[in-house]
């Protein structure tokens, strides 16, 4: 087993060597601009892009013409939300999203609010899912867009997208979903889920960084977007800019591999994830899973280790790459807003660890991480005043803390 162990596949994934292989010719021999219509170099690049477009489309049950390549999912989210709101301005100015969305959605909505849009941020229940009745109640005749993620990047919780899609259809409102964490990992189909706009990212599915896509429905209804990047009119005018051919080729290859291997890969990772969960629960008391275990990505686990602070935990397992919702690990010095939204209390957000398993996670790694984490949690609890107080019978919630 090689150290350090990577168990942070929600942050990014290594590029699959088969994907790298597919990309390489497009850096050198086949370097053409896909928009060069009048020579061989351009035709070769264009053909490669169209193959990739088909591969990405097939992963989500779309038609190739409905795939717009972007620089990544942040751009896709921006284009979907700003583009739709701008395009359908005459219909209304109301957007519905959710408090646990990725910052690329939340901050885009915040920007629209400053420009006079009204945005409803739906809360989530303790399991991390939105309430469909609350969504129904939030829809008005001014609602132009609903943006709800398929799977959450911190807690891996799957939102009921098909139900949201059915409701959106019934109300005649467009539905955008950030499917960055779900696509390629769990079945996702634009027809079954009844979505109109879908954001995808290559580097979360063993493809390269710097390339993403936006699915834009062409039929029932035909969705139009105001372009956010002006220029040469690439990508059906929705996203100008010379195409990142090697990146797109890699994205296509990565999508094809995910599609072919999803069933076996997700079952294998589910087994490993459940094993990790089981060992941790067997070894330690007072640990809590954040979010629904039932409606969850098979390769995600997010656990709070009560009475132990997340950053100190990470420090103790410095040969394992995972993430924490602790404030100390975030740039904002605030604990994870996703975990806070679950209503479990800031203290548990500070104590959380996100595990993201992936294509190269092994059983030996899972055993190592579980045992190592167990010993670090035990050691830190021995030096935790909170753990000591709880063992003495003090109710921490009844303490008056001296905040600073």
């Amino acid at each position: 087993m090689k150290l350090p162990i990577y168990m942070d596949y929600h942050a990014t994934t290594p590029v699959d060597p088969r994907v790298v292989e597919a990309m390489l010719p497009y850096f050198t021999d086949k370097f053409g601009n896909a928009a060069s219509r009048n020579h061989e170099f351009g035709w070769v690049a264009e053909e490669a892009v169209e193959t990739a477009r088909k591969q990405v489309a097939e992963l989500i049950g779309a038609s190739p013409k409905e795939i717009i390549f972007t620089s990544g999912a942040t751009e896709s989210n921006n284009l979907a939300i700003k583009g739709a709101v701008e395009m359908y301005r005459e219909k209304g100015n109301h957007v519905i999203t959710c408090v646990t969305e990725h910052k690329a959605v939340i901050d885009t909505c915040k920007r629209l609010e400053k420009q006079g849009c009204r945005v409803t941020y739906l809360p989530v229940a303790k399991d991390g899912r939105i309430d469909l009745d609350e969504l129904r109640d939030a829809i008005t005749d001014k609602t132009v867009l609903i943006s709800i993620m398929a799977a959450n990047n911190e807690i891996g919780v799957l939102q009921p997208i098909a139900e949201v899609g059915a409701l959106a259809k019934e109300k005649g409102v467009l539905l955008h979903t950030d499917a960055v964490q779900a696509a390629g990992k769990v079945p996702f189909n634009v027809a079954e889920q009844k979505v109109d706009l879908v954001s995808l990212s290559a580097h979360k599915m063993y493809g390269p960084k710097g390339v993403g896509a936006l699915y834009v429905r062409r039929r029932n209804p035909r969705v139009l977007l105001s372009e956010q990047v002006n220029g040469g009119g690439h990508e059906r005018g929705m996203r100008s800019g010379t195409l990142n051919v090697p990146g797109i080729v890699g994205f296509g290859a990565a999508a094809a591999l995910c599609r072919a291997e999803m069933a076996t890969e997700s079952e294998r990772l589910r087994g490993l994830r459940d094993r990790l969960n089981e060992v941790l629960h067997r070894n330690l008391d007072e640990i809590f899973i954040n979010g629904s275990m039932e409606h969850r990505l098979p390769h995600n686990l997010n656990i709070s280790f009560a009475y132990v602070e997340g950053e100190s935990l990470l420090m103790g397992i410095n040969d394992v790459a995972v993430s924490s919702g602790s404030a100390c690990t975030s740039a904002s010095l605030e604990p994870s807003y996703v975990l806070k939204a679950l209503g479990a209390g800031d203290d548990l957000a500070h104590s959380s660890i996100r595990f993201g398993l992936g294509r190269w996670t092994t059983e030996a790694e899972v055993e190592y991480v579980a045992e190592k984490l167990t010993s670090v949690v035990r050691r830190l609890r021995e030096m935790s005043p909170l753990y000591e107080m709880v063992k003495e019978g003090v109710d921490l919630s009844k303490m008056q803390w001296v905040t600073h």
Partner: protein
Amino acid sequence: MAYSNKVIDHYENPRNVGALPKDDANVGTGLVGAPECGDVMKLQVKVNPETGVIDDAKFKTFGCGSAIASSSLATEWLKGKTVEEALAIKNTDIVEELSLPPVKIHCSVLAEDAIKAAIADYRKKRESEGAEAPALAGAQPTA
């Protein structure tokens, strides 16, 4: 975030982890911070009433590596100091010794607060000698 070697050393080999009998008249206990803020320190001193010198110091900390290191270092420094000398320890001394980055300065502030709270508790006990001593200074169960 990269830690200084001293922070890593205190994290891996914390000095003086543990608890002193909090009902002992010569023991002062300080509990500062809050769980929802991500750090809580409990620092205890045992003072020789004859000499006013801190004979022993213990800590327990819930917090990041820098918070653990700050309190570990504080207990190391407290031992052998008089109460007056202990009160002269400044958070900036801790920042300097551990090479704490700006985002971790609050850890050193918390350690200084913990020292002051522990000594305040000790002094309170000495003043009301004979009366039942409060269990903890700084934080009290409300009900």
